[in-house]
């Protein structure tokens, strides 16, 4: 459409944008690493890297599920509420032991995901509204179950939150393992193919005989389960259940990570490596500004600029 006009430019804007779209997020992470190792004191230490990675791990886990949902041309606003719900349910059932508590969390999360999926796939409600309802209701339910912050004293939970293998915290291992698993599912399994087909064109997927409804429902359940994992891990790290503030604005962080990572909002494509890099980019950006005593307001403005730049670079690359 606008190609004719672009071709007359001496500088090939199209290719520059394409490069930016594909590799921009990695270039951004690289640039931040280089800049920080020069200007930020004590940046290049194992301790600092561990801190940053532990902080970003829950965001990555939530963003993985969000990437799958966005791949189907949907969005899941309820992930923050599911994290809060996971915190509440963990606190309620921890008395029976860690495993029963985790089982209960999984049941609650699957219920929320099932409700999202049913609203979207069976009733045909727009994803943004369906998950908005569960976002409001889910946070409310979390607060009904546990009205205020509660300290949790459980050795198993504590070791989940702060334990490590050879110096690498469980949180990082779990996030990395889940990222590999999700990337494998997207690239190498029938379900991954079906997911992308549904996101590419739902009517076409339907006509091709794909189980569209089942794929959508499973995607929303997976998103909720991943959010629940993040919620449990965050709770384990805090050693306290905080349904009021846990997961607040997490949906925005996750969407940002996915979009900055090069997954188009129009569905049909999922970039897991980019999503992880997107989460890391935002984390490093925030850390850089904080370490140089720039106020949080700058972080938000910077984040806004990064989002717009990322979608601008991705412009017109999805289907119309």
């Amino acid at each position: 459409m606008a190609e004719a006009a672009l071709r007359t430019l001496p500088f090939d804007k199209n290719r520059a944008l394409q490069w930016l779209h594909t590799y921009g997020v990695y270039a951004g992470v690289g640039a931040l690493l280089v800049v920080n190792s020069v200007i930020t004191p004590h940046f290049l230490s194992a301790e600092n890297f561990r801190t940053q990675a532990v902080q970003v791990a829950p965001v990555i886990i939530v963003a993985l599920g969000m990437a799958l949902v966005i791949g189907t041309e949907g969005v899941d606003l309820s992930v923050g509420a599911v994290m809060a719900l996971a915190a509440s349910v963990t606190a309620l059932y921890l008395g029976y032991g860690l495993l029963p508590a985790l089982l209960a969390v999984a049941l609650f999360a699957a219920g929320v995901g099932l409700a999202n999926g049913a609203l979207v796939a069976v009733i045909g409600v727009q994803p943004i509204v369906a998950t908005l309802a569960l976002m409001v209701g889910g946070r409310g339910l979390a607060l009904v179950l546990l009205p205020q912050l509660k300290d949790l004293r459980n050795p198993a939970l504590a070791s989940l939150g702060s334990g490590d293998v050879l110096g690498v915290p469980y949180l990082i291992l779990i996030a990395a393992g889940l990222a590999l698993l999700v990337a494998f599912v997207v690239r190498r399994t029938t379900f991954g193919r079906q997911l992308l087909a549904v996101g590419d064109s739902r009517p076409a997927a339907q006509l091709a005989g794909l189980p569209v409804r089942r794929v959508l429902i499973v995607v929303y359940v997976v998103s909720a389960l991943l959010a629940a994992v993040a919620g449990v891990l965050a709770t384990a790290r805090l050693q306290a259940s905080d349904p009021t503030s846990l997961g607040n604005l997490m949906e925005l962080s996750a969407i940002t990570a996915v979009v900055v990572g090069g997954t188009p909002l129009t569905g049909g494509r999922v970039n897991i490596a980019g999503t992880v890099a997107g989460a890391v980019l935002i984390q490093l950006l925030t850390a850089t500004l904080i370490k140089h005593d720039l106020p949080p307001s700058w972080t938000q403005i910077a984040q806004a600029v990064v989002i717009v730049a990322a979608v601008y670079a991705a412009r017109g690359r999805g289907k119309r």
Partner: protein
Amino acid sequence: MTTTGTDAPVTTASNEPEEATEPVGSARSERLSALTQQHGALAVLMLVSLVASFSFDTFATGDNLGNMATSSAFLAIVALGMTFVIITGGIDLSVGSLFALGGVLAAWGSRHGTLVALLLPLAVCGLIGAVNGLLVARSRLAPFIVTLAAMLGARGLMLALTDEGADTYLIGKGSVLAELGQGKTLGLGNPVWITLALFVAGAVALRRTRFGQHVYAVGGNEDAAALMGAPVARTKILVYTLSALLAGLAGALNAAWLASGVTILGSGMELEAISAVVIGGTLLTGGLGYVSGSLVGVLLLKVIQNVINQIGSLDSSYQQVVSGAFLAVVVIAQTWLGRRRQLM
């Protein structure tokens, strides 16, 4: 064929693959579903209010109703702008941040006179809205993500202005601005009158002007609207600017009412506004919507909130559960009704 219809409601009527499968001619049932779509929220509002006024002595008192009206006014102004955006098939997530920003700017500006206090928030918020509109209309970025960025950016700006939320600017007692927010005319708070005037103006603009026709046309089918010669890009830029202006104005009025620019306000307001608009019968797919419905939607949300507060023994978190469940029920009903109308 029918399954395609039930599975692809997100697409607009124009690119749904199938033709009408239901028997044409059930004009009565079509009228009925249209009526439910448009006035269902009003019926529920009246029912809930009626039950509430019989159940609680304190509900239907002048004081309680007056307070509810004033506290609804600010959300209603935001929802008015959101209605226009949603009818064009877009969405504006930045209104909550703009609401907070507008309040802070009004309070900050009030030391330089009332005119500055009113014009500054409108100018800044209007500018942000125009940028939203430009990015959506000219650069064809998704409204969802553009306004998400604006939401972060506007809140960042607001925090930068207030020393990270530590400074709260006050509005002097007895100033014209304070009178505008706190005064009463004929027993109702001034913000309520302003809201009513804005809704009348909004309804006229939507129903009786060329701009209003363009708003519906863009939301109904953008390509068709462009082919008919409607100024699609200009219409979109205007609705996002309008939405931001109204959010800024609502924030300024709210600050005048509270006599200070409170920095923690407005978070989650975009979701409340969207809920109100959707409950009021405006379709998120665009092309169909009512300004009056959004007002009813806001009132319904506030009445439910009030009733839950009246019950007292119920924790306020139940309110969120009820609101969420209510929103789900409404969109399910709307999706059914909307599909029926599209098929016929």
